[in-house]
């Protein structure tokens, strides 16, 4: 059979050793009724070439960024991935190993995760980070749950910015729903596209547990974390900063700089292909005093019996396999290989490269916005500062999008499906992958 190496002789020999004649005897203790109806009605297996043909046909029915011009962000970004990244993550020693339960033969994964944790701290300006969680959205939800573990029972009100990524707000709602004590409240955004700080201050109170803001937010706007943090501090609430485009942290003051208690986000931008939105990974950072409340895996430094440095999974007493129903979270398998990709990516970019890449993104996005407004009669929607994403209003948006589509351009994301208050608004993202001439074609297409 395809991947089972057993020849008939192998099977016969093994059955003899076991002391039975027929392999069926191995599961005859399974109730007959179940066995009789267990047949799988699927076609037979295919040769590798046939499998590749079938998958190639399916892939051909999708629009890939390799032949289309995407101006799509909204939580998943099209960035350059150096070939060296895949060369590392496709090495079977990384790709096929399990969660590093046996540290003596897992130092590769463990050291890389320790380096990952450090990189996340450096980028977010926080003191401690875990080895990653599923994605940015569940990271945001886990952050709320972590705040709940820390804050007194009297604080269960969660203030969520309406300018936070809609999926993230939904996932927070899904997770919170099962915990009767948590009450979510949405805070509107103002004309700048940033969360309305007046409304935030008004909503903050003695029962507030935490405030969740996007940084930058879903509109690409850079929130004023300084003021938000000040307000939270005054009210005794935690500030949770959520980043969907981590490249921004190569350029912007990090959440830790403002004193955020928790900084989380999606890391896909760092060396992970878009993959229709997954797998990427969630990053999760906090202050040292909170490390025992962290969800997920933590890698720590230690020494072996000969005094040599080594790395291990640590603080496992937080985790499900030890703590079971009292664990800080239920996460077991996470997104390690994507975290490794990010670690490789960031070590290739390095201090100067990451900064430069962020500058290139900002420069291209700002130039594109200016040209769309100047040359394509698009209207600015928000006045706040932004990184590589921005919102414009395009008259007759549907036709404009269709026009662009005919030229193999996807000009951005329509916001009205999540924000009825923003008709004909388009969220446009421009990265280093959008050539100057692509921007020309975008402007032409939207100008009509």
């Amino acid at each position, binding site marked *: 059979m395809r991947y089972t190496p057993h020849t008939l002789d192998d099977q016969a020999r093994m059955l003899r050793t076991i002391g039975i004649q027929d392999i069926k005897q191995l599961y005859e203790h399974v109730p007959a009724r179940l066995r009789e109806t267990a047949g799988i009605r699927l076609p037979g297996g295919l040769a*590798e070439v046939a499998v590749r043909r079938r998958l190639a046909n*399916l892939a051909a029915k999708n*629009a*890939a960024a390799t032949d289309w011009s995407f101006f799509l962000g909204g939580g998943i970004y099209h960035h350059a991935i150096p070939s060296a990244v895949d060369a590392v993550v496709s090495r079977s020693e990384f790709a096929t190993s399990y969660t590093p339960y046996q540290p003596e033969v897992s130092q590769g994964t463990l050291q890389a995760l320790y380096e990952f944790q450090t990189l996340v701290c450096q980028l977010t300006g926080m003191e401690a980070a875990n080895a990653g969680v599923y994605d940015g959205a569940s990271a945001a939800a886990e952050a709320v749950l972590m705040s709940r573990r820390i804050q007194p029972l009297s604080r269960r009100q969660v203030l969520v910015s309406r300018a936070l990524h809609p*999926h993230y707000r939904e996932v927070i709602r899904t997770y919170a729903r099962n915990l009767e004590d948590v009450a979510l409240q949405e805070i509107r955004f103002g004309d700048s596209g940033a969360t309305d700080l007046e409304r935030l201050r008004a909503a903050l109170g003695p029962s507030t547990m935490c405030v969740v803001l996007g940084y930058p937010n879903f509109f690409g706007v850079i929130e004023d974390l300084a003021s938000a943090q000040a307000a939270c501090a005054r009210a005794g609430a935690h500030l949770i900063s959520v980043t969907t485009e981590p490249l921004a942290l190569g350029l912007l003051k990090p959440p830790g700089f403002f004193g955020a208690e928790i900084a989380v986000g999606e890391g896909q931008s760092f060396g992970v292909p878009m993959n229709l939105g997954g797998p990427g990974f969630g990053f999760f950072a906090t202050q040292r005093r909170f490390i025992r409340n962290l969800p997920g895996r933590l*890698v720590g430094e230690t020494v072996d019996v000969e005094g040599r440095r080594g790395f291990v999974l640590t603080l496992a007493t937080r985790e499900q396999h030890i703590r079971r129903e009292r664990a800080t979270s239920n996460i*077991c398998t996470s997104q390690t290989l994507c975290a490794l990709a990010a670690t490789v990516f960031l070590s290739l970019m390095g201090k100067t490269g990451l900064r430069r890449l962020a500058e290139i993104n900002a420069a291209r996005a700002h130039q594109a916005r200016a040209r769309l407004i100047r040359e394509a009669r698009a209207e600015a929607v928000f006045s706040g500062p932004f990184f590589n994403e921005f919102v414009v209003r395009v008259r007759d948006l549907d036709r404009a999008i269709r026009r662009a589509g005919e030229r193999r351009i996807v000009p951005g994301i329509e916001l009205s499906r999540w924000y009825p208050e923003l008709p004909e608004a388009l969220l446009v993202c421009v990265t280093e992958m959008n050539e100057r001439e692509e921007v020309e074609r975008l402007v032409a297409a939207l100008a009509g």
Partner: protein
Amino acid sequence: MSQRLPVKRAFGCAPPLLFDSGSPGRSGFFWPEEDAFPAAELPAELLRDAVEGFPELGELEALRHFTQLSHLNFGIESQFYPLGSCTMKYNPKVNETVARFPGFAHIHPLAPVPLLQGALELLYELEGWLAEISGMDHVSLQPSAGAQGELTGLMLIRAYLADCGDARQKIIVPDTAHGTNPASSTLCGYEVIQVSSNEQGVMDPATVARVMNEEVAALMITNPNTLGLFEKNIEAVAGAVHARGGLVYLDGANLNALMGIAKPGHMGVDVLHMNLHKTFSTPHGGGGPGAGPVAVKAALRDYLPVPRIEKQNGAYVLSEDHPKSVGRVRSFLGNFGVLVRAYTYILSLGGDGLAEASRMALLNANYIRKRLEKHYSLAYNEPCMHECVFTDRAQHRFGVTTLDIAKRLLDYGFHPPTIYFPLVVSGALMIEPTETETPETLDAFIDAMIAIAREAKENPELVKTAPHSTPVRRLDEARAARKPVLRWEPERAERDKEQGML
């Protein structure tokens, strides 16, 4: 002090940390074109200074760093990796090839749906296949891993019962359950009632009936359970739960034992999750990414997470409008890259191939069980399915524990079984060979286990001080937890250098 110096060896030395390598100003980033580009005008007060302590390496330097790290890892393609409950089967290379097709790797989840028809077709078909394999009615591919599948499953049980005006507070979980089961229950706002398995290592209907009442929302059961035993009374157990209005959740992480042998959907199961990164051959990646789809019976369909993939006159669409749905459990459409691999695996094996896989998984596990039973004592003397659980009872009198046995296996070039799990077995050694291993490999592993049993008798010190041939020897985990060092910091790097630790 000298032993603190890094081991000098031709192969397998750990590289220094990224942060202790490189040189200021060095970078693998090269983007000459851009130099002309006008910079964006962003208010200066928004901008950070250069990221303190960030790596500064060249491309080869970085690549060599990670290549050297890879040489410190065991992996399925270099070693036999019989980690119980983890189903470390071969991760086919063709899966990796197709997952990298630009039409899968470089597509955006918020692109217009007409531009994603191939991806949606794949997902739609995969949902159907998983339903057929598991004997359930509907599937959602959203959950990112098994534990998130559990949480999703429990959430929809909760939502379903709430709709029936029958809010309940508790979940019954066997003592053999994986830690994620109780943890997910709590996360879903439930209280956990732990029940113990009987002397045969399985759930007893009577026991369940005794704890079952109108406060209990569901029973979470794993089949085969973590002892590798088939829950032969599962129908009666399910009956007892249903009789009092509860639902049955099946942890399908061990589905690799059941394909073509028995369908969970026929056992009275209402909800289950599957681990595609186990049964369906997607790589574990050192701890993910995985995928943990949930499958339900028709009655629970409306509660599945959004978005859902539907086929409307020939075209695939994403529908979000399901008022009863538990909502969204993660961003976008799940771990698509993982789902492509699982799809490819099922397409490659076909129905018969999957059944053959489960049969061979049982054959391999029982072969090991048989050949080792005279040398290690079995936790339960029952026929096993895809894995078998031994204990260190027989070695105890020589002062040799399961941990020692595991570490000594490393010196023989084998990854150890899962140890000290399930918790009900003291010193458990949980061996899951999977179907993709040859009998010769099993024999080599068994011979090593037997040799270790002999060493435990004749030279226990050798075993208790193992491993002897790994890049680092036994690590001080207590120290790591006592004063956690979770990140590099400039000062520490200095200190360690003085202490000659690196």
